[in-house]
């Protein structure tokens, strides 16, 4: 579900953080516990970013990923994909956590 909205967001609003409000409201309406809120938001966007990145870098034969990894002292391009995905997961997870906590604050 969130993947679906994520892809929509990717094509409609091309800001890198545009998944954040989606994670927020998804968790606001759907999530039941604090850890679930964080991890579902995290996993959804980390996975989304990884897929979108692979979709770009594989046809590029990782030419650019290799050059950028070298620049960031990463020994392999795969690590750059992982680091990117973790960053994507982190703020999305934090966003869905916020969404869940806000609802709980309203509900008392």
């Amino acid at each position: 579900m969130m993947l679906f909205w994520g892809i929509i967001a990717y094509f409609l609003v091309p800001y890198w953080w545009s998944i954040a409000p989606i994670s927020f409201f998804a968790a606001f309406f759907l999530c039941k516990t604090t850890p679930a809120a964080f991890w579902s938001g995290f996993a959804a966007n980390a996975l989304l970013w990884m897929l979108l990145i692979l979709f770009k870098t594989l046809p590029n034969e990782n030419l650019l990923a290799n050059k950028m990894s070298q620049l960031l002292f990463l020994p392999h391009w795969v690590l750059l994909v992982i680091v990117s995905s973790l960053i994507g997961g982190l703020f999305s997870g934090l966003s869905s956590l916020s969404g869940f906590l806000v609802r709980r604050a309203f509900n008392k």
Partner: protein
Amino acid sequence: MNKHTSKAIGAILLLAVLIWLLNTKYGVVPPLGKILSPSEGLWQNAERRKIKPEGSIVTGSVGSDVLIKYDRNRVPHLFAENEHDLYFAQGYITAKDRLWQMEMQARQAAGTLSEIFGMRLLQSDISMRRIGLFQAARQSLDSAMKDPRTAAMLEAYSEGVNAYVKKLKPADYPLEYKMIDRQPMTWKPVYSLAVLKLMAEKLTGGEAEFRMANGLEKLGMDTIKELIGEDSNAYPVIPRHSPWKFSPLPVGLSEGTIAGNIRNDDRVIGSNNWAVSGSKTQSGYPVLANDPHLELTFPGIWYQLQMNGPGINVYGVSIPGIPCIMIGYNKDIAWGITNTSADVVDWYRIRFRDRTRQEYWYDDQWHKVTKRIERFYPDKGGVITDTLLYTHQGPVVYDGSHRNRVYMGPAKEEEGFAMKWVLHQPSNDIKAFYFLNRAKNYVDFRQALTDLFCPAQNVVFADADKDIAMVCEGKYPLKYKDQGEFILDGSQKRDDWKGWIPMDEVPFTKNPENGFVCSANQPLTDSSYPYYIGGAFASEERAKRINIRLSSMKNINADSFRLLQLDTYRELAEAVYPVMLRRLKQSGIKVDKQLLMEMEGWDYKYTENSVAATLFDAWWRELYMTIWRNSLPGPGMTFPWPDFERTAAIIKTDTNSRWMDDAKTPQKETLTDVIASSYKAAMDKLIRKNGNLGDNWTWNNSDVKTIRHISGIPSFGLPGFKAGGAANTINALAGGFGPSWRMVVELGPHVRGYGILPGGESGNPGSFYYDNSFPSWKEGKLDELIFLSSREQANDAIIDSITLKK
């Protein structure tokens, strides 16, 4: 507020801070969230190997559709139906591949790099403004705008660049912009001229006068004369004893002070060009070659393209940011350029009335200084101003607040150094290229060149009418002999430039008897030429080799010239090495047998696997340094040390030269002593570096070649690759410099061009066309260039196309 509410607020705050952090740049670290995201980040710059066809692009600014065909090297071939559309398309397509490079060049020329890189580039911006380069570009824009053709061309090009920039979403920005979190600037016609002036600055800017002033003050004129000696001038650009069919303008003062010029050794910026007439070729038509040696960068200085429109169909290389093709050919003619290295910059010592620098002394009275305020807006640095002073000679580049780093004389507050430079003259140089691109024969060619002022270039020419020619074209000041070798007296009228050498009296030769013309940055003429043109010419080594080879070559075709461009024969070695070896043996010091065998068997070529080249190069450098370090004061850069050619001449002829003696030792050293000691020192260094004689000693290990990314991003360049070639050989590939474009053109009823760039067409490090030509270039191959006769002509090499729509 209860616990739940504060937790929720805390989480939201944390989220906001995290997003803000990931969206912000820290020093050289780009905004990480942004640049690593799939939607806006670096991943968007990762191009497919097989680029998706774009079909058509609506720009709204072309009069009729422009067809752009891409060949297998992704060279664009533009087909437009009017001039506006043609130059619009050139701007558009160049920006598409090279936007970052264009902005960097323009900013460097305009002195605005600090606006994006901050205070650390402020000094280089100030230096650039102080030499008046951008001001000169502004004035040349006025000239260009008065001519309807160049005005329309510059505006159309600019429109094209901006039409591309306007279409870009942040996700589409070239990667470098993302790395510094900036957006592309808007292009203006003045930037095109500024980039051209920047090129001229690289080729003509020079401060040899300050080194000469040091020499004069510390050593005296007699010693300087002795050190410089006399030029052999055996292989000038224009063949010796060429007739000069004009009566020269008078120049006044005619006595000269020194007989030679100081050469620029080890100069790595230089170029070759040559052409042979039909009598020497397989086809019976001329063949022409050109390889400009410049700093090797990714993306490279040149951008290849074909431009077709009404009255024009031309192929060649352009400089991103400047409309037209600079080196290339059409169906009738081909041309190529090398730098003349002529001295078109002079320095004047200015005496101000007092420390306020309001007035300066000239022609027996005080004159008002003109002031101009230059403003700088460095990133996070507020506004910084610099007051530039102008005398009638030009900008006072060095004064109390900005000292020249080379000049070692006394610093006086009331003193300054004004720069007089042909580059400051209002000119419309771009017009020369506009007409050159359309020229059909020798007459058109000469007419086109009359607008080329600066940088003065040796322009080689060949056409399908079987003419060949070489013209040392440019605006040269009319000077008395040796004027400007030293710092001139700014208070004396006699030291002003006396006018200009008329454009039809510049050195040139057409269809010379020997059947060929060639240039390699050597002196332009023999002493029979009636005007004085000094300069920091290159040594004659390359010129001599080219002359010798072209004299003997017959049945030439494109491949013969490809091989000649790869020639690594070192004339200096032929001249001086036998003497060095003979004296080494006489000296009686112990020489390793294996080394001796290598040295004696050398063919004087700097080929990739030559060990002998490594030995000679190291030994010669050591010898040269030993001689002059021990006998002249100061480090080499601030004194006019004799050049390699002169040093070799002293070694060969003046065996008892006083310069061999080390002034710091009590005994008197001889030439043999210096040769032996420098040999030993050089070999010790090589052993320390490479270990015992073996595979590590090959030339390609000694001189490792590099290609730098234009902004120095390490993994975007090539930190080290192995290849043959050396400075002062025809294949002048040395360190980070080398052939930035190799071209050979066979003229005839069906012109055929061959060429190669060291990198590729794209400036995007994420593109396969960023460095696709590198392997072939390194191996010395040339691609057959795809020169289409019309938009309809089919060719298997065309693999993609775009249409720019109304």
